[in-house]
């Protein structure tokens, strides 16, 4: 197996499948486009399975390493490799792609080939981000994901899609351009290397570390998104088609958290320690304040978007506690959030496809006409509120535990989300699902089709598996987190 370039396959199989889908052309061949897209997505997932099977959990370094020269002029290499953190994210990404293709199966009627191709290409690029061990390669993948997402929001989005798409693009581009300057600085400082591993070993003075950290912070904080640079996300989510929201929430936001783990923390550990109070404050504001904002939303998608930001606050909180529980919790929270927020957006999508409304006020009593759907939404809603036994609990609980070791009040503030999260999720659930049938449209609703049951069931299994038996996930993370902690404990000041 080791002779197969598995990571290259994980990147390029979806991209080439996307190109193939694109080649089916106009909507006359929509059926063919859908079939190829599904096969491509499944193939993309299948090629990542050997990664999980042959993964050595005891080994902390990069595995499945591939390297070849890419731009000799600047000593840039096409070098790939994964550790446990990237492995989980790659699997999550490839899995989500299948769900997204299924979710867009019936709903998307215009420019089907372009829609499916955009998601497949994006999936390959995201795998590239998680697998790249060369900073420039990472950057190229990181930026390239913007293009398909921009088109997905803009072409298939809602009424205000143009504004949302442009805002999304420019916001994220601003962040990543500043990161580019940091990358070029590190390239010079390291004597002409773009290898992330070299940079992690490089001693850097405090001022430079802070500058580098801030440049990374802008790029990744926009992606996560952290308060106060989160404002693009509700717009993007509300306007994006369901598939776009799912990928955005489940994968794209993880690029930010992953960036902190791969770049900001290990390259500028002293600056990270120095600025951890600042980072924790921002994270807690996101957790508490955005949680409250979510409470007053009248649009379901917006509510879930704000809930997403609030939950991602746990990720950044966990990362800056410098504690084992914090890191493992943050990473598990990223994966779990991928399943749950994806599922929540899909549920809203299911309702939107039938009613063409996302307003909570337009619903009521859905349980009477869609009992199976109501059960699924119950499960995902509970997971979103962090109920023990679901994946939502594991990560958040670990982060809160980690925070309590550092400072009781951090843990207290973070734990408040268990109340707010339950409040906004269950209150929405009550208003939408329970009660008497709100209006004649609800009375005509049909319950889930087999296709919808399939993708919701797949996610439900994932949410429960991770909630009941998180050990395999923890096992994969143990070695890289141990190494990261050891690395962060050492000062890099010259």
């Amino acid at each position: 197996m080791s002779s197969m370039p598995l990571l290259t396959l994980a990147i390029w199989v979806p991209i080439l499948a996307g190109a193939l889908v694109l080649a089916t052309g106009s909507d006359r061949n929509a059926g063919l486009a859908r079939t190829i897209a599904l096969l491509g997505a499944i193939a993309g997932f299948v090629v990542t399975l050997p990664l999980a099977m042959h993964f050595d959990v005891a080994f902390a370094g990069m595995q499945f390493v591939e390297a070849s020269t890419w731009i000799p002029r600047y000593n840039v290499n096409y070098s790939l490799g994964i550790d446990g953190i990237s492995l989980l994210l790659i699997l999550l990404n490839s899995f989500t792609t299948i769900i997204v293709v299924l979710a867009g199966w019936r709903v998307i009627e215009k420019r089907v080939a372009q829609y499916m191709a955009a998601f497949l290409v994006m999936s390959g690029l995201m795998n590239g981000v998680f697998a790249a061990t060369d900073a420039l390669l990472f950057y190229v993948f990181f930026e390239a994901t913007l293009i398909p997402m921009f088109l997905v929001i803009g072409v298939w989005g809602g009424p205000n899609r143009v504004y949302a798409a442009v805002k999304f693009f420019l916001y994220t581009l601003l962040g990543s351009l500043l990161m580019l300057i940091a990358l070029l600085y590190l390239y010079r400082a390291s004597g002409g290397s773009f290898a992330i591993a070299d940079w992690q070993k490089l001693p850097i003075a405090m001022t430079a570390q802070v500058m580098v950290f801030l440049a990374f912070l802008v790029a990744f904080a926009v992606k996560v998104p952290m308060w106060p640079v989160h404002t693009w996300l509700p717009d993007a989510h509300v306007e994006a088609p369901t598939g776009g929201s799912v990928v955005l929430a489940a994968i794209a936001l993880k690029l930010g958290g992953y960036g902190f783990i791969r770049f900001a923390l290990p390259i500028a550990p002293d600056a990270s320690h120095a600025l951890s109070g600042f980072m924790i404050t921002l994270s807690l504001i996101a957790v508490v304040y955005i949680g409250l904002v979510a409470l007053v939303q009248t649009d379901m998608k917006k509510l879930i978007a704000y809930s997403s930001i609030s939950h991602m606050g746990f990720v950044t909180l966990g990362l800056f506690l410098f504690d084992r529980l914090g890191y493992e919790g943050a990473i598990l929270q990223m994966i779990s959030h991928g399943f749950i927020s994806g599922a929540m957006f899909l549920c809203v999508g299911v309702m939107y496809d039938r009613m063409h409304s996302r307003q909570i006020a337009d619903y009521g009593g859905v349980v009477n006409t869609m009992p199976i759907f109501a059960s699924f939404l119950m499960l995902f809603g509970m997971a979103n509120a962090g109920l023990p036994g679901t994946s939502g609990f594991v990560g958040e609980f670990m982060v809160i535990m980690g925070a309590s070791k550092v400072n009781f009040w951090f843990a207290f503030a973070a734990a408040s989300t268990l109340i707010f999260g339950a409040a906004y999720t269950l209150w929405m659930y009550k208003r939408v699902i329970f009660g008497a049938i709100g209006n004649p449209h609800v009375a005509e609703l049909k319950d889930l089709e087999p296709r919808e049951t399939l993708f919701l069931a797949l996610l439900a299994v994932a949410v429960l598996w991770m909630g009941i038996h998180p050990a395999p996930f923890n096992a994969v993370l143990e070695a890289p987190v141990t190494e990261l902690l050891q690395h962060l404990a050492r000062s890099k000041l010259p």
Partner: protein
Amino acid sequence: MILTAADFVPVWPEILLLVMVCVILIADLFLRDDQRAGTYLLSLLTLGACAVVTVLTSTGDVTVAMHGMFVDDPMSDTLKVMVYIAVATMLIYSRSYVTARGMFRGEFFTLVLFATLGMMVMISANHFLTLYLGLELLSLSMYALVALQRDSNDATEAAMKYFVLGALASGMLLYGMSMIYGATGSLEITRVAERIASGQANLAILVFGLVFVVSGLAFKFGAVPFHMWVPDVYQGAPTAVALLISTAPKLAAFAFAIRLLVESLGHQSLLVEWQQMLAILAVLSMALGNITAIAQTNIKRMLAYSTISHMGFVLLGLLSGTIDGYGAAMFYVSVYAFVGLGTFGMIMLLSREGFEADRIEDFRGLNRRSPWYAFVMLLLMFSLAGVPPTVGFYAKLAVLQGAMDAGFLGLAIVAVLLSLIGAFYYLRIVRLMYFDEPVDGTPIVAPVGARLLLSLNGLAALVVGIVPGWLMTICQQAMQASL
């Protein structure tokens, strides 16, 4: 003065082109209108032959010929080949456009080829006079090309502006050169450099001359504040000519800057002077170009401002004062030239008889009319915006890297932030193409050659972006071997 056979070898491409232009000029007189394709094919053939001769006579080393008037080095060979490709592509793209506008005549081809000859002479000049002659040959052909549509008010106005301001700039350039001559006693680039290095030349006079030389140069690049002519000329000139102005001459202008600033005035005492001047020009160009482009409704005008901002980036590469920086600037200018070719090519593809697709609105809904060409334009736009994985990103990266290497961190940050503003208006085109419905459902018709080449052009922006190493290496090695 006696010229030996060896003096003529490096000049063969120029001689061949000159002879062929004369042949084409005469042969065209005997062709009927429906046989004009002969002129077209002969012109393409000439450019191909020149490319072959340039490659064959290339020695990979610096050869000075004609008693120091002319130089043949790897940089000139590389740039010349790029110029042939750019001009040939321009002829292929514009064939149906110029035919529909009654410009598919002998003059068009001879003027284009004379302009090419001017560029070649500029690129290979080793003497201020040669440099100036090349520049004037290029400029005079261009003035005539802009005015080729005699009945068009816009074109006439554009040609007038171009001519008056161009003449002014040439005057400044000549004045600056005369100052340098006064200080060093020579017009030959290598001698000028030697005299300055020996410390005998009067620095005050040199700097005085340098100011004029840089102004003249900035005019040719279209850098702010010498950019006034650019938007008017781009908008007024027939699209085919605007395409020519915005691409190949930029390659020549780059060589011009290298010869003048680096090879003759590159001594440390003057380097610091022109670095500062170029820094001001670069920042102003990037700022004004990018910000003003946002307000444009005419795509040719928008591209004019976009060109201004890109030239700011080229200047940023040049002012780094290192061979790496020059190599980066060369990479940038060649990438820009080829992406520019594609962009103007798209405008001509959408144009038809009596309809200039020169409003930004004309791109509305292109994805509905033709998904393939919308995709091609998307790649070109993202390349101009510098978003990976398109090639434009690597061009920006190389220049920023060069600038940071030379210690211009602040300039690099400013450049990055201004290119974010730039992304906005390129995105607008993508937005119109993909997010809006078409207002004009006319099918797109163009000759097979143009369509094929345009598709290749767009794909190249992506493919060269995925494997950019070789082009960077070519540019780098050309600079290293020539300086």
